[in-house]
């Protein structure tokens, strides 16, 4: 197991270096140099420009600049936002829990609906129910979620008036946020019930919008994995033994069908973040996605650079964790390759 972990980490190193290089070089592809960028529309006079170039090390060779950048990144220094003058890492970390909360809620919803729907479609193969699930899944998979989010707002906020349109909680409630997760922090506040319900009603629509695509993919994948497993000999044996259908499907088949499904869930992470950018923008959800879009709008390049890097590293680390988990569960993977 240890050699497996070391191998996986070794693969990660060149990718990490590559991502840092991409983040480093992208910001230098922006028209104008970083000093002009920081000065903004006021501009700087040539003498001060040259001084600043030396001060920031921008007159040195690109390779040296990259080395310095990498050193800073490894020591946790991702630069300062041009607009707020806050360290990028601090801003990122203060908004990160909001995105994690939204993504976890969406993923949970996707699994809770997608998994049973896929199992049901496989067991009832060829019936109208199967067609319904597959049709809904294909539609969900093709959904432009920025439009879907607007439709949800039209119906649930506009026509029915059930849910608020934006934010994480009513402005009425103000309390400390030790965990950064609104659902948990609201329970710890002075008015746990009301605050929790408010947080939940703010979370509902964004989570549904963000859950749609993973839900569709999980349902599809579960169905095809289940169909494959249900035709295996050991399932027939289990049936022949006289086990109840529920036991055969729920215990014998599902356990093996879950392996590819878990992989697919892991692979949804990048997609989930892409979706979070759109969902957060539409629902004014104060997370990383909205922050990045605003940073791009304000031409706050250090924030964009740092955010890009941190998100890529987060995706890499979660993928690594899933890989390791997978190796732990499935010995064939650990010892092969």
């Amino acid at each position: 197991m240890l050699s497996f972990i070391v191998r996986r980490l070794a693969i990660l190193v060149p990718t990490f270096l590559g991502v840092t290089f991409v983040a480093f070089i992208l910001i230098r592809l922006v028209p104008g140099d970083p000093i002009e960028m920081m000065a903004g529309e006021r501009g700087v006079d040539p003498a001060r420009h040259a001084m600043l170039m030396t001060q920031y090390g921008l007159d040195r060779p690109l390779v040296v600049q990259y080395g310095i950048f990498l050193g800073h990144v490894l020591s946790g220094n991702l630069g300062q936002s041009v607009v707020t003058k806050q360290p990028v890492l601090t801003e990122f970390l203060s908004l990160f829990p909001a995105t994690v909360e939204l993504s976890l809620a969406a993923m949970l919803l996707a699994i809770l609906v997608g998994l049973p729907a896929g199992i049901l479609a496989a067991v009832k193969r060829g019936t109208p129910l199967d067609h319904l699930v597959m049709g809904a899944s294909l539609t969900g998979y093709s959904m432009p979620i920025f439009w879907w989010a607007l439709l949800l707002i039209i119906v649930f906020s506009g026509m029915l008036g059930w849910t608020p349109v934006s934010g994480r909680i009513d402005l009425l409630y103000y309390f400390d946020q030790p965990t950064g997760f609104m659902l948990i922090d609201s329970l710890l506040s002075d008015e746990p019930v009301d605050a929790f319900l408010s947080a939940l009603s703010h979370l509902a629509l964004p989570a549904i919008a963000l859950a749609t695509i993973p839900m569709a993919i999980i349902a599809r994948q579960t169905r095809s994995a289940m169909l494959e497993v249900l035709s295996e000999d050991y399932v027939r044996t289990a049936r022949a033994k006289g086990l109840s259908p529920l036991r055969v499907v729920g215990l014998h088949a599902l356990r093996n069908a879950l392996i590819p499904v878990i992989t697919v869930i892991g692979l949804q992470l990048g997609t989930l973040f892409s979706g979070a950018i759109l969902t957060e923008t539409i629902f004014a959800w104060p997370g990383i996605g909205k922050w990045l879009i605003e940073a791009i709008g304000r031409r706050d390049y250090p924030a964009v650079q740092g955010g890009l890097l941190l998100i890529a590293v987060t995706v890499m680390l979660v993928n690594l964790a899933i890989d390791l988990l997978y190796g732990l569960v499935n010995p064939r993977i650990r010892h092969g390759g």
Partner: protein
Amino acid sequence: MAAAELPDDTLAGKGRPPGPLAEFWHYFSANGGAVAGLVLIALLFLGSILAGFVAPHDPAEQFRDHILSPPVWQAGGSGSFLLGTDAVGRDILSRLVFGARYSLLIGSIVVSLSLCLGVVLGLLAGYAGGIVETIILRLMDILMSIPALLLAIVVVAILGPGLINAMIAVALVSLPGYTRLTRAAVLAEIRRDYVVASQVVGAGHLRLMFMVILPNCAAPLIVQASLGFSDAILNTAALGFLGLGAQPPASEWGTMLADSREFVLRAWWVVTFPGLAILLTVLAFNLLGDGLRDALDPKLKRS
């Protein structure tokens, strides 16, 4: 001799194996969804070519007396604006019809760009192996470790917003899919006898790569290209929605949605129809892709 005189539709004619195209159509047409997708795509192409004749109005013309006029079936709707008008009085149906041009053009250009580049990189990686393969695969790993839409957004932020830059960005993020798919297909083919035979006869590297191996990797690439259309349309529309793609007053569907966001609670039709157009187009390409996969995959055919 007698058999040769028989007309084609007798036993002798039926015994002949069907051509590859006829066989493909046999499997493809058995899939109702795929045919529906194909029909919808054909209609879209037709509609966008003939947009000038099909659309009732000029997509940019502003009818000042009909601002935010609802669709025809709703109270206050007008018969000359079937799907209503937007906030400056432009006919939504006409804008949608002309918008189909954008979506199909975006899909075609993005898929061609990423397919061509991805195929070349994948062929190189699979054929050359060694250090070339490692470098190409690591590059693709880097591209894939950044969420697709985020990478596209950052690329557009640097190149500047606009339709062309958005398409370049979307083509870039779909590159790894084609590269990895081509490489995998090449690895499956390269040890086959027919490749070795061509090599023995003296075919050069380029000939082996493009003329011998590539045609036999076509099936998964065709499927991926069809599915790639939907990704391209979705991602470019998302960029348009975020204000980074086609710029107003272009009637690109994502841009139309961005324009109408503030009316979401006042005029549902301004928001609903452009999104519905995106959904149906993407759905059609996904149906087509699924149908192509089933028809081209020999493993599935037999079952």
